[in-house]
């Protein structure tokens, strides 16, 4: 099997990302912002879903919370958008702690569907408590003249998430999360602090999406409950990670690139066809390539594997294996 150098890919992507705003058109920048937002969402979901094995359908909860926190800050007090995004990130972390503590008591599919319910409930709250959130009318923000600063912010966050994932993949912490995914009870009885780690991963998966939610509201110049808690966002995020490879470093990147193109081509004009297609892609991925693009052609099994660097590190330490 050909070995593709992950560093090379990341490097190339990084260079493209850096120079895009200067040479690309406004459309390219706009498309890239969406891609970067999805990238961040995918990498965040990958932490709790891919590595820790607590897959769920409520990622958009924190995206929406961030969107509203950011929008309200900007709308009422004219907070600069980047500050609003940072505060939104805090809000995401702060809400994730109690929510995680409660929801993570559920196992497997219950957790997944419970989180889905959470997202729907938050959407209902956003709609219902309209004295605070303007309800169905939505919040209108001053449109931004230049998208490029937004792009750099999103790119920076995406780069951070990528780097964090890479570090995690090659660390013992990453192994502990994987152990939780593989067999939580066994991990627990061998001394791994599963509750603490689960909540940590969950909170970590909430921070960046909250910031991106706020950014998204600024990007659109508008936010309302169906937009903030859109099922489109949830579905696309999950499909990206599964298609690319759950619990890997490059998986979310691959998935994000593939699905962003599909998104761009179909979403604006044929939203139902887009959503049905992504559903179809997800279904086919589950049936035929559940380990993702990154692991095409590797040994059969249900989940993706990564961590080549870790193995090289270990080989360096003792005898060659």
């Amino acid at each position, binding site marked *: 099997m050909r070995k593709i150098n992950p560093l090379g890919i990341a490097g190339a992507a990084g260079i493209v990302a850096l120079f895009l705003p200067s040479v690309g058109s406004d459309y390219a920048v706009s498309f890239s912002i969406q891609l970067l937002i999805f990238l961040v969402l995918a990498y965040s979901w990958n932490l709790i879903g891919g590595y820790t094995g607590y*897959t769920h359908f409520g990622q958009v909860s924190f995206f929406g919370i961030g969107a509203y926190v950011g929008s309200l800050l900007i709308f009422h007090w004219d907070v600069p958008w980047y500050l609003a995004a940072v505060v939104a990130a805090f809000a995401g972390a702060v809400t994730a702690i109690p929510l995680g503590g409660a929801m993570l008591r559920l196992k*497997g599919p219950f957790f997944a*569907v419970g989180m889905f319910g959470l997202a729907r409930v938050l959407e209902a709250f956003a709609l219902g408590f309209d004295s605070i959130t303007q309800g169905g009318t939505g919040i209108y923000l001053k449109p931004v003249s230049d998208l490029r600063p937004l792009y750099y912010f999103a790119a920076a966050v995406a780069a951070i998430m990528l780097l964090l994932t890479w570090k995690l993949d090659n660390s013992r912490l990453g192994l502990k999360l994987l152990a939780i995914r593989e067999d939580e009870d066994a991990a627990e009885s061998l001394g791994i602090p599963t509750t603490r780690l689960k909540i940590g991963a969950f909170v970590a998966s909430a921070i960046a999406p909250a910031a991106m939610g706020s950014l998204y509201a600024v990007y659109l110049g508008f936010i309302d409950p169906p937009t903030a808690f859109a099922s489109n966002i949830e579905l696309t995020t999950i499909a990206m990670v599964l298609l690319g490879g759950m619990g890997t470093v490059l998986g979310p990147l691959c998935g994000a690139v593939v699905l962003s193109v599909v998104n761009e081509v179909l979403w604006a004009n044929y939203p139902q066809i887009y959503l049905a297609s992504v559903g179809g892609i997800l*279904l086919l991925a589950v*049936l035929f390539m559940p380990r993702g693009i990154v692991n095409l052609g590797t040994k059969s099994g249900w989940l993706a594997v990564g961590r080549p660097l870790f193995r090289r590190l270990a080989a360096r330490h003792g005898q060659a294996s």
Partner: protein
Amino acid sequence: MPVAELLIGGILLGGVYALMACGLNLIFGVMRVINFAHGDILAIAALSTVSIAVGFKLPFWVAVVVVPIGCAAFGALIHVLVLRRIEGAPLIMSLLATYALSTILVNVAILIWGGGYSGLPGVLSGSVRLFGINVSTSRLVSFACALGVSLAVWWLLEFTRFGRAVRSVSRAPELASISGIAIERVRLAVFALGTAMAGLAGVLVAPAFAIDPQLGSRFIIKAFAVIIVGGMGSYPGAILAALLLGVIEVVGSYFAGAVIGSAFLFLLMLAVLLIRPRGLLGAGIRA
């Protein structure tokens, strides 16, 4: 506060929830699959009913018979094409698969029927006097049918040979296969039956409520809440919890508006999960 009205309204609503939750519970109990698409099947069944009654101008009872059968066939198809292939996989895979399926169904529904609301005016219209309150005929009939079918399926599970087979596959698949039960056929039958129940629930919902393609995702959460509160794997628990939650939703909506009222169910579900995960009558969650 119009107590009797809210109470009865809630119970009537609960009947439909019961039918839906029981189907979901059955599928989960036997196959350990959480059928995310369950609600969307209900929605499509409801929309099909409207098409049959309004579009093809056929009597309502035609839909009552045809739609659940169609849903059962569809369920069998899904089982063969999708669920059977992922039987050995981690639970999350079947969840992802049904989630994907749900998305496909919702959007196909929107493409076929449009995203707006429809209804069945004129079918089972009018009202009936019950305990001194005016109750809409359609809701009463829905309730009666839904509860009736739920109880009928319960009887099926408890007292027939098929039901015994289902229960043994649910509790101990390895033992069941040794004792000669065709597990695959039982699973297929159960999934088709559960899907048919969702279909029937959809037909019964059509004359009583305003329906749109997104109905499914609203219902699935409620069905889930019902199952959790009633206790996973407990059929009578699901029926009881459905009626209870119907009342809670109606009362909650009365005080806080429809939107937040339905959120109450989820909050109750969360409370149950944290305080008494077994639910009312459940025997504990065997994940």
